[in-house]
Every structure is written in C-alpha cells, then in structure tokens.
C-alpha cells in the first residue's frame, strides 16, 4: 500500500527528530503536500547532460596554515550548554536505559 501524506510526514518527522503533535501533523501534512506538488515542476525539465552545482562559486577553498593555535576554552564552550557537568556535556543515560518503543533511534 502506498504511503499516505500523513505516513510520509510521520516518517520524515522521525528522521528529523521532531516529535510532532497529532494536531501539528494534521495541519502540516496538507501544506507539505501542496508545497511538494508546487515543486513538482522541477520534474518537467530535461536535465540530460546537466552537472550538479554543489557550491555557489567555482572558487577554490582557501586553507589556513597548519599552525597550532589555542582554540576556545572548553569551560567557555560549555557555558552555553543546557547541562554542563565536570567539563562534559551531560545527557540522559543511554546504556542500560529502557529501549524506546517508537524506533526513533538510529546509530
């Protein structure tokens, strides 16, 4: 059975790590569908022999000299985090935690 717009959106939300409410899913699904239908015009072009543009310009990247230099202090970086602890970023327990049921995980 083909995926419905709602199925597609629900699956995409999981990939995007967004926990949408049912109300949001109901509102966003038709919008999402309308936007994609509008963008379908891209399929009408003959793109035979056309290369992809990966970067806006053909300029070459400019690399800095490989000289050691001090970066930003770890303590300063950690100050912007929600839960800095003992010089680390603390997150909920992952090893030994109960598995999630909705397969929102990944590697």
């Amino acid at each position, binding site marked *: 059975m083909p995926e419905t717009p709602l199925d*597609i*959106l629900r699956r*995409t*939300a999981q*990939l*995007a*790590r*967004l*926990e*949408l*409410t049912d109300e*949001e899913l109901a509102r*966003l699904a038709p*919008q*999402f569908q*309308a*936007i*994609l239908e*509008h*963008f379908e*015009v*891209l*399929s009408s*072009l003959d*793109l035979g022999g*056309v*290369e*992809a*543009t*990966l*970067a*806006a*310009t053909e*300029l070459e*990247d*400019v*690399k*800095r*000299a490989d000289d050691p230099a001090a970066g*930003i*202090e770890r303590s*300063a*970086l950690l*100050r*912007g*985090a*929600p*839960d800095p602890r003992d010089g680390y*970023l603390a*997150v*909920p*327990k*992952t090893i030994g*935690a*109960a598995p*999630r049921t909705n397969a*929102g*995980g990944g590697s």
Partner: protein
Amino acid sequence: MSDWLELDAVAWRARATQGGAALCAGVDASLAAIASLDGQVQAFAVNLADSARERARALAQRLDAGEIPGPLFGVPIALKANMCLEGVETHCGSKLLKGYAPPYSATFVQRVIDAGAIPVGMTHMDEFAMGSSSENSAYETPRNPWDLSRTPGGSSGGSAAAVASCMVPLALGSDTGGSVRQPASFCGLFGLKPSYGRVSRYGLVAFGSSLDAVSPLARSVRDIEQLLFVISGADPRDATCCDLPALEPGSGDPPEATSLRIGVPAEYFGAGIEQGVRETALAALAELKKLGAELVPVDLPHTSYAIPTYYVVATAEASSNLARFDGVAFGQRASGDGSLQGMFAATREAGFGEEVKRRVLLGTYVLSAGYHDKWYGRAQRVRTLLRQDFERAFEKVDLIAGPTSPTTAFRLGERNSDPLAMYQADACTVPTSLAGLPAMSLPVGFTAAADGTQLPVGLQLIAPALEEARILRLAALLERATGAGSQRPPLAAGEFS
C-alpha cells in the same frame, strides 16, 4: 531630538572623530533614538546601551590620545540576532536558543568592532532566518517605519527597521535567499548581498551554507561600500571565504554611464509583479538610460524554477545545519520521556517554531533515501541551469536590473497562513543567491498602496561574481542623479530637530 540621526555612517564618523566628547554624544543620540522609537518599531531584541556607552568612552579616550581612527570609528551599528558577539545573547529568533550567549565573536563582527563601530543592539528576525516578513519569531515582530502596520520584510527585518527609522546609520543582516535585499526594498534602504565567498561566515549561525551571505544595510551607497570593505577578505576560519583583496572604498566613484550595458530580463517584469513596483522600476531604468546607459533585453529562461530549486536546496542544507540544536550543546533542553532520543525530539518540538519545523521536514524529506535523486539531486542540476542563464546574459551586458521584490511591504499577518504565498516574496532574489552573485537593492521611488500609503520600491542590480564594484558605481551614479534613498519616514524625521 538630534541632528546626528540624519547622518550617514561616513558623515557620522567624520563628526565623531572631531573629539571624544563628540563621539560619545553621537552614541548617546543613537541610544536616545532607540529609547524613543523602538517601543513602536520593535527592531531590537537585545539592547546593548551599557556596553555601547562603555565602548564609546574607551574609543573617546583613544581618540583624544591621538589614535588614528578606523573607518567606522564611533559609528553605531545594529547586528542581526544570528550573529555571534561574545557574551551577548544570540537567540536567532528561536525559543531553543533563548539565553544562549556565544563564547566568541564572528569574524565580521570583530572586524566592524576593530574598525571602531559600536554595536548598540541585536535585531529581531525570522527564526533561524527562515521567512520573508520577520513574523516567524518566538519574540517581537519588527515594524516597517514607513507604516507600522506593515512588515519591514524579512528575515533581516529588525536590522532594516533600525536603519530606516534612523536609530542607527548602519546594520548587518544575513541574506540567504533575499533576506537583506527584500527588507532594504520594503524600507527604502540600500542593501547589498555580496558574492558568495566575499565575506567570512564564521560566527553567523548557519542556515543554508552554500547560500548564506553577511550583508550590509545602509542609507547611502558610500556606507555600503565602507562596511563591505571592513567585513570582506580572507579568513583562516572560513575556507569558503576567498583570498582576494577587499574592495577599496573609492573604487566605486561614479564613472560615465555611457559605457554601461544594463540587461533587462522580461522574466523579472512579468506576471506577479505589482503594477506600481513595475512602473517605479521601469522609471528608474529610464533614468539610467537618460544618464547614458544602454538598456539591453536579456533572457533568464529558468527563472520560474528558482523558487522550488531554492526551497529544496536551502531546506536540505538547513535540515543538516539545524541538526545541532538537539538539547545537548546549545541553549534550551526539554526532557521528554527521559531517554536520549526522547530528549532530542522533545527539545526540538518545544524549541522550534512552525516555519522552522516545516523547513526542517522538507529538507529532511528531499534528502531521504528514495527521494534524494528526485528532489535534491534534481534541484542541484537546475541550479546549474540558473547559473548558466546568468553566465549567458553577462556575455552581453555589464549588469542586470529588475525589481527587488514583486510587491511593496505587505501588512503584518497578511500571508501568515499560506507558506507558498510567503515563498513567492523571494521570486526575484533567490536566482542570484543560487548563482552566488552579488546583488544590491537600491531605493528608487515610492508607489501608493491600496489605502494610499506611499511605500518604497527597490531596484535590484546584479553583477557577475566578485564584481560588487560595478554595482556600487552605478548605484552611486543613480543616487547622485536622482537623490535616491534620501527620503526618511515621518516617524524618524520627528526625531531630527
């Protein structure tokens, strides 16, 4: 209130560098204008009055001690709230980054500070720069100084409103698909999106990394030129920033226009462009012709594909860039069901607004297995066609001109319920973003809205990559010949005397 406020940045610096007392008086004038006007305009998200006064006093001492002043010495500047200024809240219009203060300053921010500019505040914007009206924000919505019931444009609406209301002479915004040029057009300002790679992106919170351009907003061409000179040039922290000499101010002195060929694409004057906008833009072209330029019809045949191409490419890049906002390293966290995955999802659900979610979803979808080739792969190839359109046109002409935006400033709330209608606001600006070209909106006149309000119209000048000087020269010529951009909204004029 103060005769400082009418000055452009070049004149402001000239007056401020007469002495430390003058410099401090100038900054006080800007801060007083913010105190007086910003309740109505709502341009500023973060007020930096205290640090601005402190910086002014320090600069004043250095000046009085004989230091040779830098090119923006003593000039107040507004920064968009997606720009890192060490220790200052950079919330990007998002709840997720409420209270987040970066531990470093962006390269371009450090450069304006080193040049002597004084940041007086961070400005309101669409969340993560996603929008065309500055309404997609978890905070206040900035207003258009020409009509407070209308949008100043977006996503750099706060920066544009701050300059148009004369609270500051200069501001920086970011332009991914038109987010500086369209607000410049709506507010009667000059706004230049430099070539991709001209200005370092280090310290600009990333939206679309192959498109983002730090972009000046000002009330005169020479100010744009000066600010571009200060912020451009190679940066060891951004490998995509080109290793070419920065543009020297003065290289843009008006030449004779007689040698210039200006391309006029029919695609930029067709259906969807409001009549008043079309007529005002055509009148500006007629003015250029009077000055001796030759107008040449050019074709940009893939223009109608630009909006879908842009919204596929930009959302794909955004979905990747915004993956870092997951409750681990930056800003706010929601705990969800207590698991790590649950924390990621709950943080993003609570922290992102609807337009950001919509774009992250679109971007994730067009990159997902089974859909990548159909959407992202195709869009990248159409992007090539759009670039080639410009390459072919520039074989015949020096510059391309057309309206910056299909409409003048629309009313707040008018397009909120229809994302596709909002996306159309970018029709004239996204092609150049996808091609990495420099483009500037310049104020060329006014047209009446349905209710009779006179609203500014912008003309967009587009040049080949790294040829900003061409744009600046022609803009200066038009500015001198027609007084383009010299009118101020009544709200600001009330503060002058």
